[in-house]
Structures are given as C-alpha cells and as structure tokens.
C-alpha cells in the first residue's frame, strides 16, 4: 500500500481509530508518519486523515522547515516543533506563534474568546494583551482607508508600505 500523504513510499504505519462511532484508517510511510507526528499527535482528539493534513495545524503542516530560526525565547521551541510534537512549548509560545495557531484553535473551538473561570490574580491586574499581527494589520488597514477617504494619499502610501513590511516579516 502506498503512503496517503506523499503517495510515493510504501505505507508502514497504519492507524485505525474509532471516533464518535466513525472508523477512520490512515496509511502513512515512516517518514511522513514521523514528520506529521502521528502516534503522539493528540491523545484525546480525533485523528482522521483530513485532520492530520489540513486539520489541527492547517496548511502549516506542509510548511515544515520554513521557520526553524524563529524560536520562542523562553522554551526554545520553533513552530515546526509544535507541529511535529502536537504540543505547544510554553505559555509564551501562544503569544509568539499566536497568528499561526489561531486558525487551528478556531477550527476546534470557534471564534469566541474565553468565557470561564479567571484566576484571581488576573482579575486584580487585568493584563493588556499585546495585539496580534493580524489585529495590528487590521488596525493599519482601517487607518489607511481613513487616510484615503480624507484624500491624504501620501499618508495612505506610508501605511501601505508599513503593512507590506509587517506581512513580509512574518
């Protein structure tokens, strides 16, 4: 049997899981299986084929090797490590890789923010969360539109370049 991911090598890892009564089977070659972190992916989370590839970490699973230099300062983890292990490295990783993690988080949980218990320490001292890159870009877009509507094209161009720079860097 041929690997369902690379469609080249012989499949050696066969995963069968019954989740919510639906049996799903995946056949992977050894290198794809280890690259995708199959086996230790998510113990109590559904693992079926669409989920492995376009599921939890989305298309980023195909971008392995893209960002090994971009590491979390606290735990030393890069985004590849997170995809491969299925584990986020530390609390700071959630800020560092927020933009990359967000689509996956929303796919499981939806778009709403936390609605449950809050530690007392946090209620006393509400933290100011640093805006995400997406939010910053959205803000800049609004500002640019405003500049255009005011016919301040010079300023709009500066903001446009700023947005380009931010997108390019990340």
């Amino acid at each position, binding site marked *: 049997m041929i690997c369902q991911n690379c469609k080249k090598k012989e499949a050696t890892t066969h995963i069968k899981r019954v989740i919510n*009564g639906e049996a799903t089977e995946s056949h992977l070659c050894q290198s794809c299986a280890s690259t995708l972190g199959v086996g230790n992916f998510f*113990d109590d989370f559904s693992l079926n084929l669409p989920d492995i590839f376009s599921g939890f970490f989305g298309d980023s699973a195909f971008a392995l090797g893209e960002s090994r230099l971009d590491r979390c300062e606290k735990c030393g*983890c890069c985004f590849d490590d997170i995809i491969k292990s*299925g584990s986020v490295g530390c*609390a700071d990783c959630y800020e560092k890789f927020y933009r990359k993690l967000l689509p996956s988080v929303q796919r499981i949980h939806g778009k709403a*923010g*936390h609605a449950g218990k809050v*530690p007392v320490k946090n209620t006393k001292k509400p933290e100011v969360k640093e805006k995400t890159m997406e939010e910053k870009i959205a803000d800049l877009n609004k500002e640019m539109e405003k500049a255009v509507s005011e016919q301040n094209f010079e300023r709009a161009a500066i903001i446009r370049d700023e947005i380009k720079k931010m997108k390019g860097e990340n």
Partner: protein
Amino acid sequence: MAWYNTTGNESGIVLSTRVRLARNSEDYPFPARLDAGDREKVCEIVREALSDYTDEKLTYRKMSELEPYEAVSLAEKHLISPGFAYETQGRALVLSENEEVSIMLCEEDHIRIQVVLPGLALTEAWEKADKIDSVIEKKINYAFREHLGYLTQCPTNLGTGMRASVMLHLPALTGKGAMRRLSTTVAKLGLTLRGSFTDGSEGAGNIYQLSNQVTLGISEEAALQNLSSIAMQIVAQEKQARALLVKDEDFIDKIYRSWGVLRSAYKLSSRELTNLVSYVTVGACEGIIDVPSDKLIGAVIELQPATLNVSQGEKLTENQRDILRAQKVRELLG
C-alpha cells in the same frame, strides 16, 4: 468510598461523573519541554501549594517509586491516564483517601486536577475541582491569557481547560445498534461519545464515556449544563430501549445465562466479566433477577488484572488471575 463502590443517581446507567481541569505554570515550559529534574521541581511546587488544602487528606507519590502493576492499576481505575502509568520519570500523583480526587503532576500539563464521583454529579464534581484549583492558584502563577483562557500544552484544552464526562452503561441502545447514530448526533452538539474500557474495540461491556469537546468560548457552567442535559436524554432513550428489550425472551435468556456463568464459572477473564455484568445489571435494574448489581459493577473495576495484583500484593499469572476473579465473583453472588 470510591465511585465504583457506591450507588449513585441513575445507577445502572450513569456509573460515574468526572471533571478534569488542566492547569500550567507561567514560569516553566510545558512538561514535554522539561527534563525529569525540572518536572520534579514543578511537582514539588504544586505539592507545597496543595498543603493549604485541608478539606481532606491527600497523599503524594512519585510515580517512579510505584511498582509497574500498581501504576497500571491506577489507570485501570481511571485515576490516571494510561500514559502516566508507563512514563513515570519526573511525574507525581496526588490522591485523596477515597480516590475521589486525583491530581496528576507533569502529565500532559503541569497540573491535571480530577474529581470522580459516583452517579450523575457534574455540579458537585466541578465545585470540588474548582475549590482545589483556587487553592493551588494562590501559590502558582497560572499560565492564563484573557482571550485564550488557561493555556495548555495541547490547544484542544484551551479556555476552561475543563473536560467533564459521564460514564454511561448503555446495553439496550448498543443492542439496538443505535450507538453510531447517537455518536454522530452528540458530535454536532459539541460532545464526544466513545467506548470506555477499550482495548481497541468500541464499547466493551456496553460502557461509554460522554464528554464535552469544546473548552474555549463556553463557561464551565454552560458546558456542564449542556453535558448534563444530553446525558439525561440518552438515559431516557436507554430506559425506553430497555423497556422493550426486557420483553424480548431471547434477551431474558441472555440475562439468565450471564447470571449462570457468573455464578458457576471456574475462570473468568476481565473482558468476559465486564460483558456478563452488563447483562446481569440490566436484569437487576429491570427487576428480572435479584443480584447486587452495584457490587458487580465495583467488581468489574476491582478485578481488572493489575488491580487484582495490587489487592493480592503480588504479581499473579493471567491464569491465576482468571481463577481468582471467578472465585471472587462466585463469593459475591453467594
């Protein structure tokens, strides 16, 4: 009393309730990125924080100091995860005397608070877990962000970090072949239904676990309410199905045969016991036969392979265990 030795609400259908909270310290990377030494440090800090919890006596044990079969027994009783029993370095378990509270340290997250109660008791289990959490919180700087809630090693637990579940015994719905449809239905409602006591096959002993899937964007109370109302609907369906089933003479025959095997077998495997007890329990709950079904359900848990070793204080062979198991069941049914 441990949950499997007491009678709860809806006994015979809702066997137990579990609430688990995942928590992490802001000050350390998550367990997968810690070496055994640092994991031990985290364990010690939490141990220290828990000394302020005085509602009941808690014992603290390093997992690496347990005999392997002792660790597996804890997993058989659903007090720890199977992985926690096998990978023991830098991990510790905090357990209350009656086994209602079990706290895994440095499992997938730094702290996993678990409360298990008999029957359907979601609110009580949550309140207890919440209380323990609030005690720990005073000493530990929790990893928390306003938008994402409690930060967890696996993003599937973000938000409340709460996984609540009820263990359901559904022989009639299983017999009717309704489980598949039911699973699909509850999945649409943000819940998961899966076989419990599984070694790959689904629903051994007709026992299933119904749990919440979504943890972010929903409050603990709302998630519990949702779970509770779906559980009650499933219980009602199971009752309806049982009412029909007990008029079926082939099924009655199955109940009596199961009872007969339990009373007279010389050897019983854990799996066989689980399946037989399932039918006998239905017979007892429907008033067809008179057996102590609560004790039998307790026996299913306590006569699992490693747990049997622990109670005997030695490692028995499979054959010895099967003989001993059958003997204990015969004694129980007098």
